[in-house]
Every structure is written in structure tokens, then in C-alpha cells.
């Protein structure tokens, strides 16, 4: 059974290594400062006791006030998992550092989020639309996107 690491433990470990990185932590949330996300990712991948070598999934949720990017992480070696969240508060330029250099698997997922949600992953080597075509206006998965149905 995959053991879900206690969120508070993870938060404490991150805080120990990178002070000021964790914005908020509770029993079911580890919220990381979006500016420090790349460093946190590197730490989570390499630090002993963590070794999250597998990025299961990157998701983004639009809460209208902010965008939340959710990283589901997995350590195949220790069979442990955890969830890290980070937030981008701007609606025009919601930027979160890319983790492609840490986990290559984020490549297409981040592109998809950029395409559909409009979150910009700074440092992504090839951030462009993936599902929709170049020149598409807007980001459909945002809650304020107005769907124009063809009549």
C-alpha cells in the first residue's frame, strides 16, 4: 500500500531545508510559495527521506481568486506519495516555475495546463499550446471562460 506522507511532516522537512518556502500547512494541505516551487521540487526529488522520483500528475484548479497548481508526487523507491500545492494569484499573468528540469514528465502536462488554464510555467523550454491550435483565444478551462456554442 502506498503510504501517504503526513502533510505536516513534509511541510516541516521543506521548511527545514528551504526556510520560507511553505506558505501554509495543515493536515491536508502543503502550500508552497510559487516563487520557490522549483527549489522545492528539486529538494523533494533529491532529499533523503523524500526521493519523490515520479511526478504522477500536475493539475491546475481555477478558484477565480487564484490558480492552484497541484503536484501529485510519488516515490517508487519508498512507495510513498504526497501532494504539493502552489498558488498563482494574478489572472493576467499567473506564473509558476516549471518543474520540467526536475521531472521531465511535467513537460506535456504543463503545456496542457498552459493551454487550457493559462497558467504560465516560467522556464519551460517549449511552452506553447498543445491541445488547441496556435492563435486560439482564451483558456477554456478557466471558470470565467465564456463558451460560445455554435448555433
Amino acid at each position, binding site marked *: 500500500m502506498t503510504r501517504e506522507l503526513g502533510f505536516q511532516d513534509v511541510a516541516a522537512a521543506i521548511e527545514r531545508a528551504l526556510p520560507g518556502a511553505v506558505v501554509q500547512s495543515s493536515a491536508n494541505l502543503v502550500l508552497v510559495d510559487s516563487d520557490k516551487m522549483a527549489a522545492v521540487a528539486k529538494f523533494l526529488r533529491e532529499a533523503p527521506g523524500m526521493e519523490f522520483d515520479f511526478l504522477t500528475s500536475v493539475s491546475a484548479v481555477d478558484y477565480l481568486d487564484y490558480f492552484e497548481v*497541484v503536484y501529485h508526487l510519488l516515490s517508487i523507491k519508498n512507495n510513498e506519495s504526497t501532494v504539493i500545492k502552489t498558488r498563482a494569484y494574478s489572472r493576467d499573468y499567473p506564473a509558476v516555475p516549471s518543474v520540467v528540469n526536475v521531472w*521531465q514528465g511535467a513537460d506535456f502536462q504543463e503545456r496542457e495546463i498552459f493551454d487550457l488554464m493559462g497558467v504560465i510555467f516560467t522556464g519551460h523550454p517549449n511552452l506553447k499550446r*498543445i491541445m488547441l491550435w496556435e492563435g486560439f483565444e482564451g483558456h477554456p478551462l478557466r471558470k470565467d471562460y465564456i463558451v460560445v456554442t455554435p448555433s
Partner: protein
Amino acid sequence: MPIKTSPIIVNIGPHHPSTHGVFRMRVMFDGENIIDLEPVFGYLHRGTEKLAEERTYAQIITLTDRLDYLASMSNNLAYVVSVEKLLGVKAPERAMYIRVIMAELMRIASHLIGLGSFLNDLGALATPWMYMFREREKILDLCEMVCGARITYSYMRVGGVSMDLPPEFMGALRQFCDDFPHRIDEYEKLLRENEILISRTKGVAVLSAETAKNNSLSGPVLRASGVNWDLRKSDPYEIYDRLDFEVPIGQTGDTYDRFLVRLEELRQSLKIINQCVKDMPIGETRLKLPALIRPPKGDAYGHVEAPKGELGFYIVSDGTIAPYRLKIRAPSFINLTALREMTVGYKLADLIVVFGSIDVNMGEVDR
């Protein structure tokens, strides 16, 4: 001094016999050698995640059918497992057995198509493909018996399955389980030692365990690279912790290993089905839940080992009848991350074969 040849860019797809749907690869060739490759997605994009935000939890089941349409039951399973995790309920025992049987049947059906198309890409002119579709047809018959549909099942429900198995199902399933091992033997005899197949696949597109993990690959592609990671073993859901089966692991991570891993998974799935048939309890198959489910506020990530890899649903609920956000972690989509790294430097013919060996489904890639 090599001859300076101007590279050619070829668009393979979206209409190409070997892209398994509408996939496109912009490939830069130097002669027959691939210099660069860029996958292009979106030809089948239907906006499932957006659609799900406007549907009730029960209605979304019909959307999940259309992800990996070759293994709809697995998608159903992944979705209902996630919603159950969000709700904090568990399906009745018998329902879990039924779900496992259906999911494993789906794994067999999906692998049959994956292998058949892979061999078709190798140029085996539809013969193994035809043999494998013949067996898949029997699985579809079984599914029709259970839920009346052959491709888009919409069979599972949050908190169980929509209906108990019909009485004649067990007999038919047993008959299939008795017959299918001979068919697997036949596939092995037809292909496993075939010198052409071996020379085409052995040592081609070797994917190291490190690369595979780094690229977030999952499913048979990951296991063929030698990573012992199968959610049925490492994070057992439903009743997999009670079942005795093995996870086939590849040694080198080349195309031949991916082929062999799938072939062996057929046998293991059959083994699981046989155990489920033996141990199947009698009882309820569906929890009494309200017709319109309103999960509590919060989020949950549920995942299962679908035939193509880890299929996960990340659901954010705001307490209403529809999810606030539903994110699908589609294995086919993420498995394609490594396509470029696997194929650059090989030849055109290898590209087709490697793409076939990843075994993606466009319904799931584009969602």
C-alpha cells in the same frame, strides 16, 4: 566527411495508418534517420474536463467511457474509485469482485488490440491482428452479456455496479478462461521466436528505468524498463491485495520487452479472473446512495492501473452535484512524453514500431 543532406520534415499523421487514430508527428529526417520529432496533439480534443464541470457525478461516467474507448470499464473503475474516495465510502464486496473481473477483461482486450496493432505496424499484414481481434470479440460478447453494450459500457456506478452479473455469465466466462490460454500459446508460437520480429525490436528504443521514471511513464512501458511498479501491487485498490498474481518486469526496456510484458500480462490477468471467479461472494452489488451525489467540499485523487498505465482522476468538489474541477491523469498522454527521447536517432520504420509499442489511445491522449 559526411554528405551534407538537407533534412526533410515529414508530417506523419494525422491521417496515417499507423498513428492509431488522429495523431500527428512532425518528424525531421536525414535520409531515413530521425533527427528530431515533435508530437502534435489535439485532433480528438473534446474538452472532457470542461464538460465534466457541468454534469452530475453519475453523468460523468458516460464521459469516462470515451477516454480509452478500448478499455472503458477501467476508466469507469478509475472514476468511481476516485468519487468513492472523495465520499469516503466503499463498494460492497461482490461489486468489487465484479469490477476487478471487468477491469482485467478490459486489460486483456486492450492488450490484444495493442499487440495486434503493434504487429500490424511491424508489417505483419493483419494476421496476428485478426487473431487478436477474434479473441477481443469474445470479451466484448461477455461485456454485452453483463451490461448490454460493447464499447461504451457505463456499467459501474459510484458505490457499486449498475447491475449484478447475469446468471449465464459465469459459465461463459469460465469457457473463455479455459480457451484463452491456448490462444496465448498460439500467439507466442506465432511471434515470440520470430527472427524478423526479434531483429526488428530487440535493442530498439531502449528506455532505461531512470528515464522511464523521470518521464512519468506508467503501465507496461514503465514495467518493461525494469521498474517494479504496478498499482495493483504497490497501492492495491478494490480487492487486489487478496489476489495472487505476478507483475511481469522487462529486463532491458527495449521494444521487445514491451511486447513480452504485454503478452505476459494477458496470462496474469487471466489468473486474476480465475481467482475472482472462484472466490466471488454473494451479496449486494450497489450501495444505497442518493441519485444526485453531493460529496463534501475537498479534493481527492484516485487512481487505478488501467491497461495503458496509471489512470487517475483528481476531483475537486465544492459540495454541489457537479464537480468543481475534474482532472484526468491520462496514461497514454503522459507516456508520449518519452516518445521523442525514444525515437530520435532511429529510423522511420523504428519510429512506427516504437510508437506502436507505447500503445496509446487517442481518445485518452486528447481527451
